[in-house]
């Protein structure tokens, strides 16, 4: 996303993010702000595994710029939604709903995901996010991806997950697709590899057919090198061969020709070749930017609107990805989750956009999801400084995936998300959660009639 032009209507803060994703250290002002938080055990988003399975591939899709989650997973059953967004709310009649859900529905631009949503292979967790609001793009991005509050360690959670859980690392255990610039989540001692595209993973100026000749020359030139040096050459050349074979497999169909579509198509090709070529891919990260919609978010009836186009791309890309993996019987061993630095202000601003907020919806795709909309909805009359109040720490969703879909142990989860000294009540602290009035719970008895 570094190379994207900053669109009109996105804030100065975001324009600087485009220049440098890792632009800012988190502020270190003393004194934490207390906020309600649900313990790790509260998210149940994924089915536990059967004993014969060896762990999902985890795909983390970062929606950079601050995703307006309530435009995608629309709380049409909450009347305050229409009060706060008189111009840009998605009319309830247009929402894609599950029969048992009278609170949430999908934005119509996600039409292609209707079948997966109804079948439970696409869903979301609502009102998720950081334990306390952080409305700066960089600070919040680093806080989300480091996931180690109060520490100066500055290593990413995916890097810790690699070290703690994945164990015997292979060159492609952790891949970033779409850019060689690594997200903060990967920063740390364990190696991850960035590829602008699968086709871009190559030895510059050497065709696949010529590679054996180069390998022969390298074998001789490295013959006397110390084993770690020779091993690095051998592993690199072998990885080029393995990825070369993955490059040669047919591309999945029906992906949109977008950055996200291409990156997901490459991710699927890696995953489909994972077993046959022994690639060992466990983590894949992808980015899609341009969510900083301060101005002109657009109506749900306008297919050319900013949000509509962005969501349509996400919907079409995820749909193609799901179908691609489903055809290879791999959707059941893949879990995709989205993260964004923050949600947006609920009340629309005077420019038909929305400003930086807090709670957000995390989208999920995979063969073993609980399905539907999960989480606790406090209601849009219970805002925190105008923002959706977080009721689920985003880490608890990730922890649930790690435990149930990657067979990580509690100890490993604790090392990936270590409770910090100035952390809020974190694991197993019902008091914080109980303090929060939970008026609506998605999927339960209807709370509102459907307004038209």
């Amino acid at each position, binding site marked *: 996303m570094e190379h994207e032009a900053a669109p009109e209507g996105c804030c100065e803060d975001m324009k*600087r993010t485009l220049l440098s994703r*890792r*632009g*800012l*250290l988190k*502020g*270190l*002002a*003393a004194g934490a702000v207390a906020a309600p938080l649900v313990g790790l055990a509260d998210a149940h988003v994924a089915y536990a*595994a059967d*004993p*014969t399975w*060896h*762990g999902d591939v985890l795909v983390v899709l970062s929606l950079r710029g601050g995703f307006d989650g309530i435009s995608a997973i629309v709380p049409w059953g909450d009347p305050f939604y229409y009060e706060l967004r008189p111009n840009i709310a998605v009319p309830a009649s247009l929402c894609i709903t599950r029969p048992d859900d009278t609170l949430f529905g999908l934005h119509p631009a996600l039409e292609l995901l209707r079948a997966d949503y109804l079948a439970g292979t696409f869903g979301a967790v609502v009102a998720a996010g950081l334990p306390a609001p952080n409305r700066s793009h960089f600070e919040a991005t680093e806080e989300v991806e480091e996931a180690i509050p109060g520490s*100066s*360690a*500055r*290593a990413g959670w995916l890097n810790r997950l690699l*070290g*703690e859980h994945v*164990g*015997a*690392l292979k*060159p*492609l255990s952790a891949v970033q697709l779409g850019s*060689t*610039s690594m997200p*903060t989540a990967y*920063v*740390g001692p364990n*190696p*991850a*590899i*960035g590829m602008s595209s699968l086709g871009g993973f190559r*030895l*510059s*100026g050497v065709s696949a057919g010529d590679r054996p000749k*180069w390998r*022969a*020359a*390298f*074998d*001789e*030139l*490295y013959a*006397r*090198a*110390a084993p*770690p*040096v020779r*091993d*690095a*050459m051998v*592993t*690199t050349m072998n990885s080029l061969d393995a990825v070369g074979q993955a490059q040669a497999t047919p591309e999945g169909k029906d992906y949109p020709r977008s950055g996200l579509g291409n990156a997901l198509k490459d991710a699927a090709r890696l995953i489909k070749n994972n077993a046959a070529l022994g690639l060992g891919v466990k983590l894949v990260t992808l980015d899609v930017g341009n969510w900083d919609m301060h101005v002109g978010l657009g109506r749900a009836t306008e297919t050319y609107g900013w949000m509509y186009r962005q969501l349509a791309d996400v919907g079409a890309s995820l749909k193609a990805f799901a179908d691609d993996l489903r055809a290879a019987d791999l959707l059941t061993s893949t879990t995709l989750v989205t993260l964004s630095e923050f949600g947006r202000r609920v009340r629309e601003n005077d420019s038909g956009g929305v400003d930086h907020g807090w709670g957000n919806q995390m989208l999920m795709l995979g063969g073993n999801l609980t399905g539907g909309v999960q989480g606790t909805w406090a209601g849009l009359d219970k805002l925190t400084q105008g923002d959706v109040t977080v009721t689920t720490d985003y880490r608890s969703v990730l922890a649930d995936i790690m435990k149930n879909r990657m*067979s*990580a*142990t509690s*100890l490993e989860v604790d*090392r990936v998300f270590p409770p910090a000294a100035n952390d809020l009540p974190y694991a197993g602290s019902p008091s914080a959660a109980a303090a929060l009035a939970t008026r609506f719970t998605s999927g339960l008895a209807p709370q509102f009639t459907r307004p038209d």
Partner: protein
Amino acid sequence: MADDQPHHEAVPSAGGSAAPLRRRVLGALTLTAAATGASLVLPGAAVAATRAEVRRVTILEAVTWTYDRRTKTTKVTKARRRKIKAKFVGAKVYRRDAKGRWRRIPYRWDRRKRALVYSHALDLALNPKRAAKPKPPPAKVDPRAPSTGPVAASARAVTPYVGTSMAWHLARRATYGPSPALLAKLGTSRASMTAWLDAQLAPSRIPDELCGSVLRRLSPYLSRPIYDLKYAIDTKVKIDDKVVTANDVQLDVARAHLARALWSERQLLTVMEDFWGNHFNVPLPQDASALHRADYANVIRARALGRFTDLLRAVEMHPAMLSSLGNRFSDQGHPNENQARELLELHTVGVEAGYGETGVVNSARILTGLSVDAADETYDYRPGWHWTGKVKVLGFTDANASRSGGEAVALRYFDYLAKHPATAKRLARKLVTHFVSDDPPASLVDRLAGVYLHTGTAIAPVLRTLFTSAEFAASAGAKLHRPFEQLAAGVRVLSLLPDNPDPNASDPVRRAGVQSLVDLYARAASAGHAPFGWRPPDGYPDVAAHWLTTGATLTAWNNKRDLCSLSTPGTLTCVGRDGKVTAANAQLGTKNNVLLALDMLLPATLPASNGQVVSAVGRRLFGMTLSDREITAVCTLLGVKPTDTPDAKPNPSTRDLNKLVTVLMDSPYGLAR
């Protein structure tokens, strides 16, 4: 190896019927053994299981390991697999010693690996004598005494690829890479090399016109005080029609460092600026310190070869550090331990010194009040924020009675830490790791620590001792280039020069003539090694093990390949045989794509055979004679016979000089530092 519930650990049954494994058993080389305190004192559920059982089981005997004291995590890097008879009593494991008595061993049963695994935390608990204690100060060493102690053979990563020439060795380690001009200066005599080293240790006297001319193309705010930049930003000053921003200036800090690495004559100074910049890491780019980063670099450069006491004071009280680690907000009500902790752990004595958490708290109290004035973003001591009362960190104590005296206490504290023997040892070890070997010889570390203390923390004498030591001379081949160092060495060995400003270009970057710096910076970043780009406060890893990954290897190869084809940094220039400066990717002939810079690698008279061409290029690039087998392998890749006569220039036998240089640069010859 994270076990969910240690108290449920079952003693291995003889039949080996374990629960179905949910994930792959870790390979022996990457297994981690974690021992928490909890594994020593078992919870109630396991107390019943005290019945002793003797079984024949697998043990993963640790050969080498690293231990993280804070997390009590042992990471076994090398292990031997054996079968032994062990006695299990609860979670305790016993093994017969030489006399046949059962002795408790620091191993615990790992259910997943179905083997006994080592735990250093357990080892320390069982053998308290092994627990590391603060080491006594090193004995006073006469810095002039000759040293012995060869470099461990195991540390030599690429020995056969490095020659015995001292000039090449010194150039590889004390600079960003040999170039023909540098090698000429170093000469072959001890006297000429000593003179070069002496000059490098007093860099302000070295003329540096070429590099200076490049630096002048970058932001003028690189050399101006912080308040000037702050004022320029506040008043929206424009340069070349573009508003000055702190981010642009901090990115120029990295580009300036790149220019110095490639073209400055003050090479050792630049290497040391990098060393201290990583030692006192303020990551770049970073918003919190963007305004102060240029001044921070200048402050470090000015003291990089001076006294560590001065460097430490300047860094710890610099707005960049105070902002980066948040001490600027630290007051008596909420002392922020961030910078105070790194001051002890990373900047000076190291965690082994044993200051403990109390030491950190006291350190934080001493640092309260060291802040930044938000109006002009310069350093500001705020007496009202200072914590008063007695403080004690290691051997440093102070009544610290007044708020106005807090800054003086901090200064005394910095000096105490700078002169602490543990700091001497730690800095010496880091320097030896950087300049000599990933496996630093203790003899040299001790001597350098002695010199450091003896000379009142002067850095130059330490470096002089280092470069003239027997350990240094014996260490050829013990270090590898990291990705940025590979890139810089590639530019230098090819004698590539900065691009020329193009007054007619519409792109301001080309107009200023900094396109190559922008390109090379992006390349270093893509290899994960942009100047000062490491995020954590400890600076880039300085050992090969971190960098021998597929991602770093492939990116470093491709960066050098593109350098040889000059496909992207195509604005670099070089001096041709006619003495003219030309774009380095100017084509010589029409039949091929031989590049001017690569052509300059060939001897003026083309050798008689293809093999001799390969050999000559190898000598020019690495100062090494390639073996016949290697020459043959390279010729095979190029599709020519070593004994055939090369075609006439500019279409030499290799047909593709680019390919020849590329394969050699990607080889271990190109990796050796």
